[in-house]
């Protein structure tokens, strides 16, 4: 299992259902990654901004995406490669 820190802005497609947010796909280095499964979700804080973290899988690898509720910015934080 290889862990890589990415910490880059990504373009993302997400469904907002009431209070739930579900990332569906994201673009990174000119490639589209389909989110097949959200394995976990947690929150953290930077100043007064709440960050929602999603651990998602494209069926092969695991990615950590983050959504800043204040700036509405999505980032790809980490990748776990098998």
């Amino acid at each position, binding site marked *: *299992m290889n862990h890589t820190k990415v910490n880059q802005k990504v373009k993302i497609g997400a469904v907002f259902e009431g209070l739930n947010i579900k990332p569906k796909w994201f673009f990174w280095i000119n490639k589209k990654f389909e989110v097949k499964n959200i394995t976990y979700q*947690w929150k953290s804080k930077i100043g007064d901004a709440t960050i929602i973290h999603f651990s998602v899988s494209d069926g092969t690898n*695991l990615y950590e995406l983050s959504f800043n509720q204040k700036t509405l910015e999505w980032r790809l934080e980490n990748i776990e490669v098998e």
Partner: protein
Amino acid sequence: MLERKILHIDMDAYFASVEQVINPSLKGKPIVVCGETSADIGWKRTIVTTASYEARVYGIKTGMSIPEAKRLCPKLELVFGNHDKYIDTSLNIHKIFLKYTNFVEAYSIDECFIDISDLKSDPKETAESMKKEIKEIIGITCSVGIGSNKLIAKLASDMNKPDGITEIKDADFKTLSETLPIKKLCGIGRKTENKLNSLGIYTIKQLGDTNIGLLTNYFGVIGYALKNMGLGLDERKVESYDFQRVIKSVGHSHTLPIDTSDMKVIESYLRMLCEMVASRMRKYNLIGKTVSFIIRYEDFNTYMKQFSLKDYINDGYKIYNVSKKILSAFLPLRKKIRLLGVSVSSLIADKDQLSLFDNLNKEENLNKLVFNINQKYGDFFIKPASLLFAENYGIKERCGLIGRHIFDKKGQK
């Protein structure tokens, strides 16, 4: 008096279990959660924080070095811990308990005491229902101990791990205590155990049967507490979830990424710690007048010194100046430093009184402004330039406030 019904909930291999839910490919595998490190530093400066049950089979334990753990299990998977994840998960677990009662006391990040005396349901059924919800919502397991007080409930939760429920009824305690060693009691550490053993006390029952005079002779007032523990007595109540603890000290300590004797790095790191302490004191609206300083050398020899001031402070720069003064007693450094820590105690509430001197008000106003900006945009958004020495040394990431205490978060919710 009616027998109280207390639950002690202990999450099973908590950090490792959360990581196995996040990454399903780790399920069933020996994994350990450890501190983050970089390729150049390697695994020398991190230890096992939590081992999964699969890893424990190989004898891997909390506190073990990574090379040692890897020697025991070469196929061991290492996962970098992230306290934000575990704290948020912990708060979500508390929400499950709060559906039953408000008497939920977070004992640590992965342990809670719950007083369900007011509930009409059977304690075992309540425990089962809580366990089921945690499994369904969070995806992890826990072990539950049931007793008439905190001491017995905690003793019980450890008897059937993982994923168990154990009830110790008061009537059964006496028989159980005949065989259980004293170290099973929460509050009896290795030193106390050795001391008690030297008096011929090995089991809980033997502790309960020991003459109080003998115990107070060897342990002072603690002797009374030890006697009660041996008898299974514990009057401590389970605090309600919104109970605010009295904060006695605010401190931070951290291990440097690499041992150093470079004073520029050490002073910069010290300033960083002082700013962190000051920021938390402001968050809690506290001022204090005793500054404690802790230093650990590369050979693990650790020293602590403190200095009491006439005036109360919560300004990072002032705390830094006092700490630097204490540090000067250790100069010139004969060995490299591994860890530094700073804490402030003798705390009182900050009544926010205006100073008669304009310059002091300006300083205080500036401190408040910086604090408010950092509260809004994140810790160290505005920081003293001298912190750059520490950051260039790789300290920022390791010391990036990721492990803030759970009660800080409770207050933010």
